[in-house]
């Protein structure tokens, strides 16, 4: 049923640190690599080596320039499914293919029931769902449901592929419904925020804003070449010769 569960036992999700993300795209490729053989496989690529490359990805990293009165900076911004507490993508589904799990809050699609009407992708404000034109069904992030409960993997590997791949630990995985979990405490400590809170989807995933600008280093660097003071001696002679 596409009605939402009244309560989920856990709220599994991601915490993404916009301060430490360097935009290396490792999470993007790790996600694609794992999931093209995983629960929602395949992540079809169309014309991958041609002029009109297109394909299904669950995780995309944007780059933004954020300018405030404190100065400007580049922010790398990974965007994927936020596994919302009130996901309209689930309730609009006419077939029951989309569902939110009562056990851990993960939003999934049953590919065998999806008719490819695309309404769920219209209902998602975050662009988390991408249509696979080759298979004719909608696809989305599974929070690596086939990794996090996978007994065949070593315990430290039972995290989403994007989290495992991140070289700067900008991605954290855990239970955001438990206020004592490491991710919940990280969110509390760093002032983690919801994306588009005004729309009322109550995303589970949280984003940690970049830390405040530091005053120790000037935001605008000093000129690279300072004029050399005219003086005598050997250096003065070199200066005069090179200036001619």
């Amino acid at each position: 049923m596409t009605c939402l569960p009244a309560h989920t036992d856990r709220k599994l999700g991601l915490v993404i640190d916009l301060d430490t993300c360097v935009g290396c795209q490792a999470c993007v490729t790790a996600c694609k690599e794992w999931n093209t053989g995983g629960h929602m496989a395949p992540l079809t690529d169309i014309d991958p080596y041609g002029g009109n490359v297109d394909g299904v990805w669950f995780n995309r990293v944007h780059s933004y320039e954020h300018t405030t009165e404190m100065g400007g900076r580049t922010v790398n911004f990974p965007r994927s499914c936020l596994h919302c507490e009130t996901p309209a993508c689930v309730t609009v589904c006419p077939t029951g293919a989309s569902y939110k799990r009562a056990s851990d809050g993960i939003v999934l699609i049953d590919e065998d029931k999806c008719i490819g009407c695309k309404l769920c992708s219209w209902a998602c404000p975050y662009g988390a769902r991408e249509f696979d034109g080759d298979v004719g069904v909608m696809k989305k992030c599974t929070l690596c449901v086939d990794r996090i409960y996978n007994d065949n993997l070593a315990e430290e590997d039972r995290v989403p592929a994007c989290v495992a791949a991140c070289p700067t630990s900008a991605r954290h995985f855990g239970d955001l419904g438990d206020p004592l979990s490491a991710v919940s405490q990280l969110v509390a400590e760093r002032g983690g925020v919801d994306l588009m809170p005004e729309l009322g989807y109550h995303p589970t995933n949280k984003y940690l804003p970049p830390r405040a600008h530091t005053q120790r280093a000037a935001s605008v660097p000093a000129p690279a070449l300072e004029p050399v003071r005219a003086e005598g001696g050997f250096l003065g002679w070199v200066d005069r010769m090179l200036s001619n």
Partner: protein
Amino acid sequence: MHPAFSVVFFTTATGAGYGLLALLGVLAGLGFIAPDFWLGLIGMGLALGLIAAGLLSSTGHLGRPERAWRAFSQWRSSWLSREGVASVVTFVPAGLFGIGWVFFGHTGGWVAVAGLLAAIGAVVTVCTTGMIYASLKPIAQWHSRFTLPAYLIFSAMTGSVLLNALLQGFAVGSNILQAVCLLLSLLGWGWKLATWRYNDRLEIPTSANTATGLAGGTVRSLEWPHTEENYLLKEMGFRIARKHSFRLRQITQLLAFALPVLLLATVFALPWPIATALSVLAAIVQFAGMLVERWLFFAEAKHTVTLYYGR
């Protein structure tokens, strides 16, 4: 939003079809339109034909149309599922009414009951179509108080103009229906102008700042995650209409409202064959205009995902 022709035709055709069905169900069921085999056959054929063609067309944009039957299951949460259920259920009283009125020549009694039920089903179905769009929060131009009434007004408008053309064709036109058509077309025109005015002044709280969680200042897209357009940009980042919206809005006003009003107004003063020709022309021109209107409805709608791409 990308205006898929299958969906543009679907909403326009079923809107007109359900409008015509509701009017026939009420007016003919209660005996205001005398039973006439050919009038009934063409009228009900047109109404049910438009509905069936629209519903078939709507399956054209599905990725897996062979599974469309599954869409009847989630009526408890999904407006799209409710639309599917309502549209199919409406065929039952509509079919009974058609048999009673067209083939047996009855009015009143069970035919009137079936006609009224078909009319109720038609109105409910049009409401569910409107709510599919009105319930989508990421698209501010649709998630407004204008959307649901628009679907109902345009359905009544196109349905009544079709019925008028039909009755004029059988030389049983009525001045009252003619006047209703005129008033509904003017109401539709006014509603569309008010909707555009509202949309043009729309200020939504969602911005690139709230989309990225970066508070204060400006957030400018430096680089997309991909070099070519992806599904999100093709489906939700459609921009052609915004470039030509002024001209397309003029075409909509001319075809969907101005010309039909002018044609219907002149029909009052004209005798049978010319009145018929102009009434039919009004219906055809209005249908074409409504296709442009519906195309713009999709193409001018802006989805919040475009904020991530700086569009």
